[in-house]
Every structure is written in structure tokens, then in C-alpha cells.
């Protein structure tokens, strides 16, 4: 070999010195092409959205309008059970096959379910996107729902139920109180009386009625748009659209006594639905009230709610609560406090929120915070694909974080005050988890 001649150190150093004397080659600057997001609405009703990010890892997701709001009384908990069953055997592949195939391709398979959606996600090396789509389609569209696998999987569901933290429970109960006549009031989690009782046929019916083309969105980051479109076209799903109930807010109150030393209280009125102007205004209002520390391990001492907690003399923390759904939402506040002083903390926070009148300076500051929150949240590709999927699923379109941030610019103090009075002037709902002794009732506040 020629390189062997250079092995002796004397020769090598001579050669290096020779290179050093040479003029360095001119590096031509090169940057990867940047792409715009692409959205295609298929005739079947499915929406395909993708963004080429030039990343070596592709993120793929299939979303269905199959969250807990589409459950009926007979199949409450079906969406949770379907989510927990991801990774088990399907009609054409065994659980072992799925696990080994994904691992061999260096991928990760996950599933998330909210009140409106189920999100089947796959992170995979760009070269193996076809494998990833194959598995993703199989997992989401053809679950096996074998009796024995469902039985074995009960432990996982029980573990999950056992580790539901009080905050999650409080927000679950807040939805139950607010949307008492609507599907949005259904819990994210399978109720105890359905634990292990949901038959495969019942789950199969729920799956068939919700996993249809018209209720589907397929999204991808770092993937070719054409690949996703042809994948979506090849699925051969029916376009039937299942039933759903309107999100009507009715006031209510649910208190859950656990005797815990820390009590969680959530209070909310009717909020804004996704994509409306009210949503932008309430997002600004949320940041005016406070969303927790803006810096890592910070104290968030400067916002309005933190001030009111301090003024009450109690021990706790409070933040604004703003949840948006496709046709409704909740806006209010969320308090975690020492059980002994929760009464005065909640009363103080409640009066601060009710009496909130925002100024232009507040709005200007909060608009920056909202824009930063939007842009920073989408820095991680996990959050970015969740956002893209939810937009495609619930609105049928996709607006980039930059465009969304620009929409906040039109918010003024007047629109914020109007949105706030609409939200807090409506029927309020309340949920509380912990020690109820000193927690006030809604009509006492």
C-alpha cells in the first residue's frame, strides 16, 4: 500500500510539512435546502401533513379522533385500553415481531391518548421509514385484541391507574364537572368498573367506529410527503364518520376526599376552541396570570397568581389553566396548596382572577411570553409532531409556529378583557382532590 511508505516518522513529518506549505482549499459554503410544510387533504377525508427537516431521524405519527370523548357509557375506558394495548400482537404481526422489527430498525413506538385524539407515534432512522410506516399502520389499524394479551396487559393499566397523580385526577374531575352532559367529560382513564371487563368485541367496535379515514391524520417530520400520501392512500379505510357529542359546558363541582396533606383545586369556566381569536386572547391572559416558573427551578414570584398566593399567607402555588379543544375549552386556575391553608389560598386566587383587569403593558409582556412559549415548545421534534398532528386532525390544516406566533400579535388589552369576562362570567366548574375540610364551595367564593 502507498500509505505504508509514509509510516516511518521521518518520512511522515516531511510529508506533513509539505502539506502545510500548500494553500488550503477553498471551502464552498453549503446549506441544506429548507422546506415548507405540505398538507394534503385526501378524498377519503384523511389529512396528510409533513415537513422536511433534513434530520437523520424521522418522526411519524398517525392520529385518530378516538379519544375518550367518543366513548359511550358501555365502553368507557376503551381509548385508554386501546392505548395501553399498543405493542401487543396485531392481526398480522405478533408482539415479538413488532418489538424486534422496531428495535432492529432503531426505532421507538409510543402511543398517547387525549380527550379527543389517539396519537400513534414512531421515531425511526430515515432509511427505515417504510418499515416504520408498515408497523405504525399495523399497530394503529389492525390491533389483535386477543383475550389473553388483554388479560396480561391489565397489570400495565393497573400500574398506570395506581400512579395517576392528584393533579391529573383534579383536571380529570374538572372535565367531568364541566362537561357533565358531553363526551369531553369522560375520564382519560378506564373506570374501575370497566377494568378488565371490556370485551375484545366491544373494543373492536370502538376501534372500527373511530379509526376511519375521515377521522385520521397522518403526519411526519423529516419524511418525504409523497411517501406519506401513498401510504395513506394504500390503507383502504372506510370514510364513515362516527358520532360525537357537542362540547357544552355546564357548571358543576366534584370533590374527592383523600385526606392528603396536599390539596389540589382546579376552577374553570368555558374557554376557547382551537383556532379562534379567543384562543389567542386567552393564551395571553394565561401568561398574564402565570404558568409557573419561566426559568428552571425558578420561583415565578413575579406573576399575579403567585402574588395572590403570597398575599393570602398560605402555603401553595397557583397557575392559570387553559385547555383548548376543537369545539370548546376551559379557562381558569389551578392551585396546589398545603391542606391546612388551602381555603385562604383558593379564596385569594379566585378573587385575583375574577378581578383581573389587564393593562397594555401586561398584554405586551404576555404576548412575548406566549410567542416564546410557542416557539420554544416546538423546538423539540416530539412536541412539534404532536402539534402538527393535532392541527391536521382537528382543523384539517397546519400553521407553522411562526404563523401561530404572529396571530398573537393582533391581541389587545380589550380582546383579553372581553375573553376573560366571557370565560369567567360563564358557568364555573370546580374540582378538588385532597383534604376537603377547608376547601370552599363554588357558591362561597
Amino acid at each position, binding site marked *: 500500500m502507498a500509505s505504508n511508505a509514509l509510516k516511518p516518522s521521518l518520512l511522515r513529518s516531511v510529508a506533513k510539512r509539505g502539506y502545510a506549505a500548500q494553500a488550503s482549499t477553498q471551502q464552498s459554503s453549503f446549506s441544506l435546502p429548507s422546506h415548507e410544510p405540505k398538507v394534503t387533504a385526501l378524498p377519503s377525508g384523511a389529512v396528510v401533513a409533513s415537513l422536511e427537516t433534513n434530520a437523520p431521524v424521522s418522526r411519524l405519527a398517525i392520529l385518530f379522533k378516538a379519544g375518550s370523548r367518543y366513548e359511550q357509557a358501555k365502553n368507557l375506558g376503551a381509548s385508554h385500553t386501546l*392505548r*395501553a394495548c*399498543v*405493542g401487543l400482537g396485531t392481526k398480522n404481526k405478533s408482539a415479538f415481531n*413488532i*418489538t424486534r422489527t422496531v*428495535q432492529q430498525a432503531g*426505532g*421507538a*413506538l*409510543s*402511543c*398517547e*391518548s*387525549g*380527550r379527543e385524539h389517539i396519537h400513534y407515534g414512531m*421515531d425511526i432512522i430515515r432509511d427505515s421509514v417504510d418499515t416504520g410506516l408498515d408497523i405504525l399502520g399495523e*399497530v394503529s389499524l389492525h390491533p389483535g385484541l386477543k383475550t389473553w394479551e388483554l388479560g396480561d396487559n391489565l397489570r*400495565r*393499566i393497573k*400500574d*398506570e391507574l*395506581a*400512579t*395517576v*397523580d392528584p*393533579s*391529573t385526577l383534579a*383536571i*380529570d374531575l374538572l372535565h367531568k364537572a364541566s362537561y357533565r352532559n358531553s363526551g369531553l367529560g369522560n375520564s*382519560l382513564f378506564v373506570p374501575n368498573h370497566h377494568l378488565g371487563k371490556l370485551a375484545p368485541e366491544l373494543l373492536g367496535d370502538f376501534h372500527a367506529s373511530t379509526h376511519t379515514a375521515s377521522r385520521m391524520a397522518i403526519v411526519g417530520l423529516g419524511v418525504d410527503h409523497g411517501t406519506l400520501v401513498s401510504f395513506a392512500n394504500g390503507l383502504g379505510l372506510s370514510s364513515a364518520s362516527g358520532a360525537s357529542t357537542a362540547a357544552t359546558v355546564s357548571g358543576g363541582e366534584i370533590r374527592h376526599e383523600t385526606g392528603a396533606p396536599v390539596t389540589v383545586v382546579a376552577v374553570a369556566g368555558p374557554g376557547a376552541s*382551537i*383556532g379562534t381569536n379567543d*384562543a*389567542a386572547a386567552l*393564551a395571553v391572559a*394565561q401568561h398574564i396570570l402565570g*404558568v*409557573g416558573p419561566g426559568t428552571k427551578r425558578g420561583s415565578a414570584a413575579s406573576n399575579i397568581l403567585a402574588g395572590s398566593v403570597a398575599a393570602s399567607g398560605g402555603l401553595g402555588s397557583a*397557575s392559570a*389553566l*387553559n*385547555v*383548548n379543544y376543537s369545539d370548546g*375549552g376551559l379557562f381558569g386556575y*389551578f392551585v396546589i396548596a398545603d391542606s391546612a391553608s388551602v381555603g385562604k389560598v383558593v379564596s385569594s386566587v379566585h378573587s385575583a382572577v375574577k378581578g383581573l383587569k389587564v393593562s397594555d403593558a401586561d398584554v405586551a409582556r404576555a404576548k412575548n411570553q406566549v410567542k416564546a*412559549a*410557542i416557539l420554544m*415548545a*416546538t423546538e423539540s421534534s416530539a*412536541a412539534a409532531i*404532536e*402539534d402538527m398532528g*393535532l*392541527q391536521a386532525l382537528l*382543523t384539517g*390544516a397546519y*400553521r407553522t409556529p411562526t404563523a*401561530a406566533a404572529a*396571530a398573537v400579535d393582533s391581541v389587545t388589552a380589550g380582546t383579553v378583557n372581553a375573553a376573560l369576562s366571557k370565560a369567567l362570567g360563564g358557568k364555573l366548574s370546580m374540582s378538588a382532590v385532597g383534604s376537603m375540610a377547608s376547601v370552599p364551595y363554588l357558591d362561597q367564593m
Partner: protein
Amino acid sequence: MLSYIGRSCQLAPALKGSTQAVANGLKNVIPASSQVRYAHTDVQVPDFGAYRRNDVQDPRAKSGDTAASRLAFTYMMVGGGTVSGIYAAKSIVTEFVSSMSASADVLALAKIEIKTDEIPEGKSVTFKWRGKPLFIRHRTEEEIAKEGAVDVGSLRDPQADAERCENPKWLVVIGVCTHLGCVPIADAGDYGGYYCPCHGSHYDTAGRIRKGPAPLNLEIPPYVFAEDGLLIVG
């Protein structure tokens, strides 16, 4: 649009449930709410105090101070155990091996003592030794001279007379014909020694085969002249 504003706040995890079906290193934060960590406070740490030496029970004592005595005890136990183990093994092996040798009653019959004075010259006397007949012949000078003069080369089983008789006066042979095991008759046959009546084998007075079908000379047992007038066979 704006779908994530509500989700980007600190309450986002409370608005959804997550399941990680297949995980890999790409996920820096696994949002799996099904991940459970148990604090196993009910597991008892085993106490081996009952098995530990008293010298090292106290955590504040220096173990180096008692090392010599502990080592001495260990070495003594190991050394003593090794020695007694080897001795026990040797006894067992000896016991088994000796079980294969002859028993005492057999050994008692293994030897006979004969008083040579009682055998007159020129006579062959028969004894019983280890279940077989034993011929003891007190040879005359004449017989000794005759057998010593035989040409060894002409014999079927060539043995000189001196080889067969330690003391030329005494011939000690087992009285079993080497042909088929009959008991020869003394003082008979063509050579004046022994004659087997079964198939006509003739032995001379040195017990050598001279004629007939037998292939070998009569067998000579181990014997010794212990003292004057006493012959011990066996």
C-alpha cells in the same frame, strides 16, 4: 393553530396519557405514565451475624489486630482436617483392598510342616497341601546319580536335576499329572519315579516327564528346609 398553547404549559402531562410500546435511545424523556418505581422498604437485609466470628462483630474494632489468631485457627482447622481426612481415606482404602486377600482360615492351611526323619530313604510319601496331593521323595544315592547323568537335551521339558531339587536328597513335587490332572502312582513306571495310570505318562525320580502324553514336568511348590529334619511347604 395554537393547539399547543394549552399543552405547552406545566399542566400538559395531565391532559393525556402515554404508553411507550418500544423504547430506544432516541427518547430522551419517556413520557410513559405506566413506568412505576417501587420503594422496596419491605425487603429485609439479611443478617449473617450468627455466622461471623466474634472478633469481627464489632464494626469499630480493627480486624488487623485479631488477624493472626483468626488465621491460626483457620490453618489449624484446615491442617487438622486434611490430616485426619487423609488418614480416614487411607483406612478405608486399606479395608477394601485387604478384603480381596485370602482369609485367615485359608492362610492357616497354606503351609504344612513335614518331619523328614520320618521318611525312609528310597520312599515317596504323599501329603495333602492346599487340597492337592504332595509327593515327597527321599532319594537314594543311586537315584541321585542316575538323574544327574540324564542328558537334559533329550528331555521333553528340559530341566537339570539340580534345578528341580534344592537338596538332592529330597524331591518335592505336586502329585498332579500335567496331562489331564490325574494323580500319578509312586514308584512305578519305566523310570522308577511316578506313573500316571490314566494315559500312561512316565515320570522319573526327579519328577520329569520321560514318556507318555504329559507335556510338562511335575510342578514344584515353594518349600524351604527350615532346620534340620523339618521341611516347610508353602
